[in-house]
């Protein structure tokens, strides 16, 4: 068995070495580069008014995008699973997934073409004193767009899995629609929703491409954290760029922890189902 052992260690070494070179090593450099000149510059970067306003804008976008997409995601998943369209279900599937596969820059362009100065709604909006592009609403819209699919895609499989038995039982016992939703459906899909919310938050915090196109990049006004990283790097303020990156990376690590907590396979609801459950049906 010596040869199988060598090949096992060989494979392990290759996989871990690759992960180290492409993932672990670069990420550890954020820490090193942020603190390369000691603590004081890091503190300065963190108290810079432009950093603070970027942080506030990012949090605002997250605070709007996450609830909107959670509500939309649950409704959309219920619509897709419980009342599936007779034809062209795959088109709907593709449309829900589109923000995942589409370049964020194209998302930004699409928003400009619709809401920009010469866009479809743009002229009407400008006449009524609402500026979307190069302003906060545009950033929020872009964030909502790119984070649209996550809750839907996590809830759909869970909803398929739980089936309609319990809901039907609730109806026959005289529960109203809203009672059934709050007492039966929502508790059943809660882990899927939680996982979707985590993914949505991660993407909303880190979105760069779509936001870069629509923001106009006015420092202190329409600059998010990711744009602040870029802008600081381009004016050779490395410490500010890496410090902001460190903040974003810390948030990403928190997201990872949450992801591992809510990962669909590890939640007890699904694991405790008897293995033959699916086959019996």
């Amino acid at each position, binding site marked *: 068995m010596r040869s199988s052992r060598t090949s096992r260690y060989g494979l392990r070494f290759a996989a871990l070495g*690759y992960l180290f070179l492409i993932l672990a090593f670069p990420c550890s450099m954020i820490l090193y580069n942020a603190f390369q000149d000691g603590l004081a510059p890091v503190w300065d970067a963190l108290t810079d008014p432009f950093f603070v306003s970027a942080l506030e804008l990012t949090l605002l976008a997250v605070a709007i995008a996450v609830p909107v997409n959670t509500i939309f995601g649950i409704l959309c998943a219920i619509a897709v699973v419980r009342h599936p369209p007779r034809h062209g279900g795959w088109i709907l599937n593709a449309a829900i997934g589109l923000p995942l*596969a589409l370049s964020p820059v194209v998302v930004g362009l699409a928003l400009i073409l619709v809401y920009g100065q010469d866009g479809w709604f743009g002229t009407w909006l400008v006449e009524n004193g609402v500026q979307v592009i190069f302003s906060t609403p545009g950033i929020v819209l872009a964030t909502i767009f790119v984070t649209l699919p996550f809750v839907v895609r996590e809830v759909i499989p869970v909803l398929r899995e739980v089936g309609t038995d319990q809901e039907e039982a609730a109806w026959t016992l005289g529960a109203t629609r809203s009672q059934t939703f709050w007492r039966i459906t929502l508790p059943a899909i809660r882990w899927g929703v939680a996982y979707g919310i985590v993914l949505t938050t991660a993407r909303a915090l880190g979105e760069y491409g779509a936001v*870069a196109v629509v923001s106009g990049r006015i420092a202190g006004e329409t600059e998010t954290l990711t744009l602040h990283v870029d802008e600081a790097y381009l004016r050779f303020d490395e410490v500010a760029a890496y410090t902001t*990156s460190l903040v974003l990376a810390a948030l*990403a690590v928190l997201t990872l922890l949450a992801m*591992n907590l809510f990962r669909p396979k590890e939640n007890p609801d699904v694991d405790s189902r008897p293995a033959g459950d699916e086959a019996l049906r």
Partner: protein
Amino acid sequence: MAALKLTFAVSFLVVLVNAVTGTLIAWVLVRDDFRGKSAVNAIIDLPFALPTIVAGLTLLAVYGPKSPIGVNVAYTRTAIALALLFVTLPFVVRAVQPVLLELDREMEEAASSLGARPLTTFRRIIVPNLMPAILSGAALSFGKAVGEFGSVVLISGNIPFDTEVASVNIFKSIESDDPEAAAAVSVVLLVFAFVVLAGADILERRSRRHDA
């Protein structure tokens, strides 16, 4: 268009590398056992959680002009490939892992008891079983790689006709107030995104049908 050609060529290479390394990593995570495995399993998702601009910056720190290991590939096509490898890392791993977990070991044992060598077992038994998962992971990687912007924009240098990818090209067109040019390239990416999604959808359905 030079930018589109470059984007698709580099992305295709990246997807090939990903199909191999992703399967390898999934294999090691499922079949091997070592200390810290759960930590390794957790960091696989890091490229997904980490903002792309931060990913670009970190790669620039390691493989750029100030590289601590003396490797400077900044502003070359290698750098683009590196950035794309980083951001697409989780897709194949996460697609293959669950399939590998559920793969029946009896088939492999039967093959080896019938005298098949490990390599033959791998080629004839394991790879065919994993193929749908590898392909759907690869399709998603391809979609992501072709549209990638944030991680590429800092490290590629964006030299027209050399290291300028499609999304950067669109971005520059928008900045220089040329929405028609931007829209033209965008349409290609949009159509491609739909193709990728439809392809991944079909693959997923097919593998689900095999389960039933």
